[in-house]
């Protein structure tokens, strides 16, 4: 298929939808449904006044911090329960219960404890993002090929070497999946926290624009945040490919 039409097809739907948006919005004339030609200037305004950058920086900084915290914690816990069978059993009940508590429901509690601060955002997001890391690391570690472990015994590798040289690299693909999921979850939860309570960052701007009836800004923010999510997902996949040159990354799934 020639290059032009290969790219034309995927581009067709977004372009078509945008065109349809323009037409329908103009026709309906609702305030709550501004056409793209009103959203674009609003977007530009946010960009040039720097409002977009400072808020994005704030949100992203917390997303990354939460991701790192949940990553380190998750991998450590996952390693522990993956390697030690009784630890797995003992942690099952707690994990299966705690991971289903919707993080957004925790926001009020955390606000009571830490107030309307960055810490609240970090805590809630890290809490939400840690579960996929724990679960994927745990299962990745527990499912290391027995044959490889036997090789380790035959070569008389010490326990630390076994973990470092055999278990962790073997579990790396699973850990990577967990980390990718946790990044996505961090973004979602940080933004949600900013919408629900903590007055800072992209989520807050979104809600304020909505309350101030600046619909064009609302749409601008929605598109912007959506693209941010996409960007992070793509970066994560790319990083995964970089870290594991010997295989292709597991296709993204939830």
């Amino acid at each position, binding site marked *: 298929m020639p290059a032009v039409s290969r790219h034309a097809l995927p581009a067709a739907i977004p372009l078509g939808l945008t065109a349809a948006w323009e037409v329908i919005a103009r026709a309906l004339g609702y305030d709550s449904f501004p056409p793209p030609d009103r959203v674009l200037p609003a977007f530009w305004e946010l960009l040039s006044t720097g409002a977009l950058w400072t808020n994005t920086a704030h949100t992203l900084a917390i997303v990354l911090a939460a991701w790192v915290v949940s990553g380190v914690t998750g991998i450590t816990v996952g390693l522990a329960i993956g390697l030690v069978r009784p630890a797995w059993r003992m942690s099952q009940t707690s994990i299966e219960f705690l991971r289903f508590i919707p993080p957004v429901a925790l926001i009020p509690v955390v606000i009571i404890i830490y107030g309307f601060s960055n810490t609240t955002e970090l805590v809630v997001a890290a809490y939400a993002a840690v579960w996929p890391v724990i679960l994927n690391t745990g299962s990745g570690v527990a499912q290391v*090929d027995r*044959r*490889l472990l*036997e*090789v380790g*015994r*035959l*070569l*008389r*590798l*010490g326990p630390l*070497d076994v973990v470092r*040289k*055999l278990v962790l*690299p*073997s579990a*790396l693909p699973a850990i990577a999946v967990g980390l990718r999921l946790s990044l996505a979850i961090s973004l979602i939860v940080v933004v949600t926290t900013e919408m629900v309570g903590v007055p800072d960052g992209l989520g807050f701007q979104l809600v304020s624009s909505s309350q101030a009836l600046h619909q064009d800004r609302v749409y601008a923010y929605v598109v912007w945040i959506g693209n941010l999510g996409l960007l992070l997902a793509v970066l994560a996949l790319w990083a995964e490919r970089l870290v*594991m040159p*010997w*295989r292709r990354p597991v296709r993204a799934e939830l």
Partner: protein
Amino acid sequence: MTYATANGRREVLRELSFEVGEGEFVCVAGPSGCGKTTLLRCLSGLLRPSGGEVWCRDRRVTEPPPDMALVFQDYSRALAPWRTVAKNVQLGLEGRLRRGERSARTERALAMVGLTGHERDYPSHLSGGMQQRVQIARAIAYEPAVLLMDEPFASLDALTRFKLEDTLLDVWAKLRQTIVLVTHDLDEAIYLGDRVIVLSAPPTRIVADVAIDLPRPRDQLVTKADPRFTLLRQQLFERILEVERAREADDASG
């Protein structure tokens, strides 16, 4: 080395006792399910026999000893896919030898199996035969006194098998370790070994323990055309059939 065992609830090996001299190349042949792999695992220290003992060089074997190496049949599972060929070969040497010595041994081992030039490749890029050579190289680099091999060529096609059999003979000619090789292929056993031990179907016992007086160096065409080869094969088959018939008679008379 003296070895005698009887295995517990599922009685796999009933009564086995034999000795292997230093530098000897012994092949153990038998039908599927006769416990050849179990035997090897007991010899290597991976498995503790429920009765009987394994001795290597005047020391009792209860867990993998430092002077033994085992080559598995499923080479793809026994190699670390994230390590290059060279790093795989070095696995047993890290932390024990300095870098210079490690590289030297790796080079030598790879040269002996004919894989010079593939140091930087990943196992997944290599053919089955080449992967098995990497495993053998890893065992060689470890410089064990005893090399155990569990049906190492069973997962390969005939031509590759012949090539690797000869490679193994070359290696042994140079290094003269003690080798115990398990195979289901009687021809292979006769071709390779100084001595062939044939096992019965379970409950397993030694059916024959025959010295192979074919001249060395062996050659795929010459040796197999030698009338003594055919004679040996015939003798062993007859012995096996004898035992089978005796057992059937036993079973019938209850």
